[in-house]
Each structure stands twice: as structure tokens, then as C-alpha cells.
């Protein structure tokens, strides 16, 4: 758990790849890519269901731990809508509908024609961008960076390197004072790498979330 200040708001960057706003009891996450493992399996690539089960269990735990009343999912809820089976929807909805929290979703590029499915899961579909406390919430980063925005989409990772060594972790990245990029929530994802020296990143490492330039978790 590491404090993260963005657009004048106090957030907590969590090791479970979610962002929490304590004063409003709101939890943010992005890029779940539900059904991704099965898309791979159908193509003959062994990616086990277990990775998705783990993602969903982590979501349950995050909501429970924070006691969040509101959940925002910033896009790419699904991986490929055309491949989703009815039984999968049923299984997923058990995770979304048991919580007392209300959940909103902004549809991402992977969610094309997934509006109805998202509603079936009990989520409220919101436009992109949506306004929240003077901050824009969106799936895609804003190329113009006019107003503060929290976005997903790119699955940021951070790279530490020296002449002989390097390590890569998913991260919360603040490449610009108006832009906060959330890590992909799903563990089964890669993404572009920011250099730890050049971009302000909160690295999600096995020893905790490391704020920029600090090597000891708080």
C-alpha cells in the first residue's frame, strides 16, 4: 500500500493492481480481459483457467479489504466478446453481484459490442470519458492531456536496469502531471516499458508497491 497523489487527490496504489480513493471509498481498476485464457485455449495455446480464477479472487479480496462502496472499471473488461459463452457470464456475474458496492464500467476497445454483456454482469455502463471529482475517467489516455485523466488501455510496466541487470514489473505510471495510467488488472498481460529513471512509476513488486525513486516499500 503506497500513497499516490494525483490531481490533488490522495489515492492508495495497491499491490493487487487496484487504485483506492479512501475519502470516497472508491476503487479503480482497468483491463480485466475476462475470457482471455479461453481465447488462447481455443487456439491450442495452454493458458490455464487458474490465472483468471486468481484475477477474480483478487478482485473480491480488494473490494472486501478496502470496503469500497464504488468500483470503477476503466475498460477492457472482456478480451474478445464474440468468444464468450453463456456459462462464462454466469460464472463471472457471481463475482460482481455478491458485493454491496456499485460497479461502473467504461467500455474499452476489447469490449466492442459488449454493452449488453456488461449489463448482464450487473455493471452500469458509463460514457468515455466520465467525470469524477474533477478528474476524467477513461479507457484511453488523452493524447492532448488537457485535463487530469485516469486511464488504462496500455498496461504500463516499469523497467529497472543497470549495465548488467534488469527487472520489469507492472506499474501505475504518471508520465505527465495530467495522466495517471493504471496497471492491467489481469496477471496475464504484458505491455510497454517505462524507464524507472525517466517516468514517475509506482512499481508493483513482490516486496510491495515502490514509489518513484524509493526502494523500500512504505
Amino acid at each position, binding site marked *: 500500500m503506497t500513497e499516490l497523489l494525483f490531481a490533488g487527490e490522495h489515492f492508495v496504489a495497491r499491490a493487487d493492481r487496484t487504485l483506492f480513493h479512501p475519502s470516497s471509498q472508491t476503487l479503480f481498476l482497468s483491463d480485466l480481459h475476462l475470457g482471455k485464457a479461453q*481465447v488462447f*485455449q481455443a487456439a*491450442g495455446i*495452454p493458458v490455464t483457467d*487458474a490465472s483468471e480464477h486468481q484475477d477474480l479472487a483478487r478482485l473480491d479480496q480488494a473490494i472486501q479489504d478496502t470496503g469500497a462502496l464504488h468500483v470503477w472499471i476503466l475498460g477492457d473488461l472482456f478480451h474478445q466478446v464474440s468468444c464468450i459463452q453463456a456459462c462464462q457470464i454466469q460464472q463471472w456475474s457471481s463475482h460482481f453481484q455478491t458485493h454491496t458496492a456499485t460497479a461502473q464500467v467504461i467500455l474499452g476497445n476489447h469490449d466492442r459490442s459488449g454493452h449488453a454483456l456488461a449489463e448482464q454482469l450487473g455493471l452500469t455502463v458509463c460514457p468515455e470519458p466520465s467525470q469524477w471529482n474533477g478528474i476524467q475517467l477513461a479507457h484511453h489516455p488523452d493524447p492532448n492531456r488537457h485535463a487530469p485523466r485516469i486511464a488504462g488501455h496500455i498496461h504500463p510496466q516499469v523497467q529497472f536496469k543497470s549495465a548488467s541487470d534488469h527487472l520489469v514489473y507492472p506499474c501505475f505510471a504518471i508520465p505527465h502531471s495530467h495522466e495517471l495510467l493504471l496497471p492491467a488488472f489481469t496477471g496475464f*498481460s*504484458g505491455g510497454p516499458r517505462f524507464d524507472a529513471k525517466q517516468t514517475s512509476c509506482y512499481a508493483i513488486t513482490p516486496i510491495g508497491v515502490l514509489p518513484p525513486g524509493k526502494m523500500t516499500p512504505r
Partner: protein
Amino acid sequence: MSQFASIRDYFQAQGFTPFTFQETAWSLTQASKHQLIQCPTGSGKTLAAAGAWIDDLLHQPKSVGLRVLYITPLRAMTRDIERALAAPLEGSAHMVLARNGDSTASERARIMRKPPAILMITPESLSVLLASTKAPDIFKHLRGCIVDEWHDLMVSKRGLQTVLCLARLRQYAPNLVITGISATLADPERALQALLPVGETGQITRAEIAREIQLRVIEDTESARIPWAGHLGLTLLKEVARDCVAGETTLLFANTRNQAEQWYQALSIVRADLNIALHHGSLASEARNAVETGLKDGTLDLVVATSALDLGVDFQAVERIIQVGSPRSVSRLIQRAGRARHRPGAHPTVTLVPTNRLHLHEYAALADALDDQALEPMQPARGSLDVLLQHLVTLALQTPWEPNAMLAEIRQVDAYRNLSQEVFMECLTVLEKGSHSLTEYSAYQKLKPNASGRYAVTSLQIARRHRMSIGTIVSHAQVRVRMRRGQSLGHIEENFAGRLRPGDIFRFAGRRLAMIRLEDGDLIVKPAAGGRVSEVPRWTGGRLPLSQTLAHRIERAFDRSTPVSPRVLNADWLSSALQKTAWIQATLSANPEADSVLCERFRSRDGSHLILYPFSGWLVHQALGPLLATRLAAYTPATLTITVNDYGIELLSPTEEPLDLLVTRWTDLLHTDGVISDLDQALNLTEIVRRQFRTTARIAGLIFEGYPGKQKSTRMLQSSAGLLFDVLAEHDPDHILLAQAKRDVLEDEFDLPRLMETLTSLSARPLHLCALKKPSPLALPLLIERLSARLSTERLQDRLQRMTEAFND
């Protein structure tokens, strides 16, 4: 009428007489005997292997279907061989055609419709043909199969793919005669056994062209001394440049692409009068073809090349061979020397250019090894499961197969002769369910048994994707280097490209280029007018480890009583140069000896150094160093920095204590129990296996590189091998592909069998301790190496700490 009259006529018409070994090979083929023909490139191997078949075809008035398959690992070779095979058949009813990755769709269709008498093919294309439903028809008339460059294929997964294909071909043509062609090998019988079906035998046919190789070492002068450490060797540029003559072709071999680029650049300046060309594996194929053509026509005066030119590329022998640095193995030297023109009564001579003084010892060792005819032993690849899984899917595309019959077929392959029923069943389960463990893969599909228990491919999509990704060659991720206007210059490793920033200047394809940007996987560049080369391109280009055969002999070269072999033309000079080094080494430290292990210790401001010289080669040392460090940690906690090269291992410690312990506990540290688990702990093996997994994943069909020109349709399936590795390692750690990747790392990257041998032999040799005041000649290269090859045994937190220390500056 004498035997083989038709092919003899052809030889006569060309003005040649067949060599004895060619006639021997023909008789064996005619008697339906398998054989391995051992012979250097460019000495008539193709017609030795195919002569009897061609003679037979010349007696057939009508086309007879596909008679002979000629498997060759390199596309580049096919044109020359095709010409050699087609010439004697000219005017007959029989065709020679080639099928490889470059063949057009219409060429492929033509081969299927009307197969030629002789088909030249790469292992990958053969697999693709075997996946066709028409395979039994195409191959039913097949009588012979020739496998070229078997010494090269044999040690790799492509070799496994080849022999698996041979096993299938024998289902269609049970009396198939198999002929291997290889360079000179230390153990040709083993090589032949690996090629043939289990239980069958064959003969070794040797070309009697034995030529004594002579060596000449470039001597240094008062003004240009050979340095104690270094990789480039440009100090001797003038001496080398003087050796080249306009109008006569010289071939200069460098070991890395970087070295080749630098030598090309330098020679182009000092010998502007020569027609100079550059050839290495990263250049665009048009550029390479142009050089190969130039070599054939004899229009080039000097070609600077890397090992990319070693294999197969057939061209007229050249006047002069120059080797910069050490060839690293006896076999490679012989192969390169084989490129020199043979003059009656003269021996081929290789000119050697030392880039540091220790190379002189390597040269003496090379000469010794040539005297002893000691070639590096080559082990055929062991049966690996990723290749098998790919092959099983390939065959299912042809027709559904029955498991018991399939297991029997696979066990016909020498590499898989001991494949157990149990492991085979695990493979079937992986193909059917995604894993043999209980982990769930609910939507998985690939193969399924049909109603009669035969395994078939489940969907058209799977079939199509598999056809596209057949093969076992996995290159490092590469990006194309392209000019703004679109001209393609070649490829470089992605991680090198990733380190460049816009405006950075680097050398490539013999030019100075400035980076503009990375775009759609292309590195866009422009010619750099001025400015400094900001970074010497350090794209790896294959680091060649020193062979153990040579490494052992280097020890002997330090022994001043051993005379230098007379095959070195300037043996006297070399001998006195060696003695000088040995004298300095003995004054500062001691010379290595066979019955002990030299162990040097000294202090510097970096800490306490301990250097061991096992002379076991870099592959073994990079495992042995961390292994020793980890075992030391059982006695005392320590932070050790380990550096290795081909000669030795350096341990650097902030305090003396752990190094004292290494000396007192020396034999206790060398036991062979628990080596793998100790290595696991020492090397963060997981991270290394993760890198290796790319190969495994690609071969087993986990990564799909996409349909040509259709990037978008596969986006939903994009994933990196590293990511797949992480998911499998976390959720299904027993998956057989992970086990395979780990085995590949232990055997290929760390040479586990040799590590075991080394541990045993070291434990019989006491340490010869020397306390130094300053580093000895042997130690210098290791001390310089440290910057580039640090092996980390630190904890994660320490690593992060170290990498971010610079942030606060």
C-alpha cells in the same frame, strides 16, 4: 559396359575423373546401403551422394515420380546444389526442383501436381509436405534420401525434426536408402547412428582429401604491440592490410558481427584500392547474395565475414584466409581453412591475427590439436518434447493417427528410442487437454481422439495456424533496419535497437547510420554525415565459447618445455612470444600446470580477488563460478561478484574470509550431489529458463507469429513467451514444456554433463596458491570482462537498491 556408365560419361564430358570416394559412395547406394559421406565443402560431395541415383534416372526414359529427396538446412545453398544435380540430367525426362520458404505458391502447386525426380528441400518444408493429405502419394516412389550438412543439423532441434520426418517417410517408402553428408567429425559412427532408424546400420565413406593445414601468426612490431586484453585487434591492421592483394580474393573471418563491421570499416580506409565487401548474418539477404555472387565470380578482392559464411555457401576457393582473433574451435578452423585454394604441392595456410596476447597460446593449442587430429566431439541432440509435440500435430494434419502405431514410429528415431509409454501418454494428454496435470483448461483444443481412437486436429483454425508455424528455428526477436525511403539494410536484435535513442549513431552494414525512430517494428535510420559513434554496436551476434578440446591444450601452451608445432610457419617467433608471456606470468604469479589448479589472490580497491583457472571453457565456468559461490554461502554469508571467461573464474569479495574458506574447503565444494538444486539457487535459474522458453514456446506452437501481411487478425492472440512462461510457472509448474525449457538451459547453456566431469576432475587437483601484488597476464582479460558479465547472486531488494542508487545523484 562398366558400372555407372551414364554418370561417368557426364564426368568425362566435363573433363573430370570421379574420385575414389565418389565411386565407393555410388556402389553403396546401388547396393541399397545407408552411409555417411565425410567430406569438406566444395569437393564433390553432392555428386558422391546423388551420382548413383542420377545414373539410374538416366536409364529411365520416362519420368518416375519423386525418387530422391535432398534435405539441406540452408535455403542459400539450394541454388548451387540444384545446378550441380540438374546438369547431368539435362536433356532427360527428369527434373530437379527446390522447395523452401522462398518458393512461390505456383512452384509449390507444381511440385504437388507433378513431383520432380529429385526434390531439394529444407526440414521445415518437408514437414509442411508431410502435413499434406497427398503425402502418401507424393512419396510412394521415393527410394533415396540425402541429408546434407548433417554435422550441423545433428546437434540441433532441426536435426530432430529431420529424423522424425525420415521416420514418417519410411512409412511411405519402407526401403528408403539414407545418405548423410557431413564435414569431418570426431565420431562419425555416432553421427550416422543418430541419422539412421534404430536397428539399421550403414557405412562411413571418407573423402581422402586430407590436407595439412599450416598456420601463420601475424607478428607485432615495435610500433604496434599486441595488447594484453582486447577483442578487436585493429592494432595489427597495417600488417593485415599489407597481406591483401588486388585481383586475388582474400577472406577475412571475424568472430562477431561487431568485429566484422569494424574491420570492414578500417580496411576500407587503408586499402581504398581494393574491392572490399562485408558479409554477416544480419545483413539483408540481397546484400549477402551479392557478396556470395561476387565470391563466385572472383570479382571481390577482400570479403570480411562472420561464421554466416561458414556453412554451406558454395564458392570457388579463395587465395588467402585470414582469421581475426581465435576461431575458438579446431573444427571451425579446419572448415575455414577448407576455403583456401588448393595448389599442387602446397598446404592451405591460415593467417592468424591475435587481438590479445593470450590468443598466441590459443594458436599454439590449435596447432597441437591439429597435430593430434583432435576434433571437438559433437553430441547429437537428445529427443526433446517440444519438437515431438509439433511433429505429432503435423502428422495429424495429414491423417488422424493411432497412438500405439505412432509411438512405434517415433521410437524408430534414435533420439527417441527410449521414449517411455508414460511420457508419450503425457504428450497426448497435453495435446488433447493443454496439460497433463490436473489444472483446468476448459476451452482448450488442439488434437482429439475420434470415434476409432485416432488423434485428429479439432479445427480448421488450428490446422491453418500450425501449418504457418512449422519449424524449429527461433531467432532472437529482430527488427528490420530501414532507410527512410524504404531500402532495407538487414536485421538487428531488438534489445540493441531498444537501447538506441533518436540521433544515436551506430555502424551497420558498413555504414554510419543515425537512428530516426522505431516504427512498426522497423528501425528507421538515415546516413550519418558527421558526429561521433555514440555506442559501439554491441549486438551479440553469437558469442562463441572456446571448445574444451582447445581450452585443455592452452594449459599446455604455458608449459615452456612444450615446443610449438612445426605446422606454424613462424614457430620460432611464436615460441619466443609464448616464452615471454610465460616468463611474465611466472614472475608475477605462476604458470598453470596439469596436476594442479592455479589460484591467484590479490587485493584491489574493489575488494579481495580470487581467480581460479580450470581452463574448462566459458559455458562450464559460468555455471561453476556461481555454484562455488552458493556452496561457500553454506559456510559463511557472503556477497560475491563472479566473473568468468574461457580460462578462469574470478570471485570478488569485500572481505577475505569467504575466499579463505574456498581455499580450505576446496575439495568439499566440488561434490557432484545436488548440482541442479544448487545451480537453481545460485543462478536464479528461473529467470534464465524464462528467456529460453521463447524457443520452446515457439516450437510447441504457443506463440504464433502471425499470418504474413495479416497482423491484425492475430492481435487477440498476442502474447510474449515470457508472459506465457509466468502464467504456466505460477499455475501449472509441472507442465512438460517448462521441464523441457529447463533441460535445454542446463544442457545447452551450462553444459551440465561437462560441468559434472569438470567437478570430478578438479577434485583430484589441489590448488596452487599464488599471492599476487598485481594482476597477472592471465587475470587481465577477466578483470576487464567484469563490467560486461556480472552474475548476480544478490537478493531482489539489493538488486533494486543498486539499480536505483543513481537516481538520487
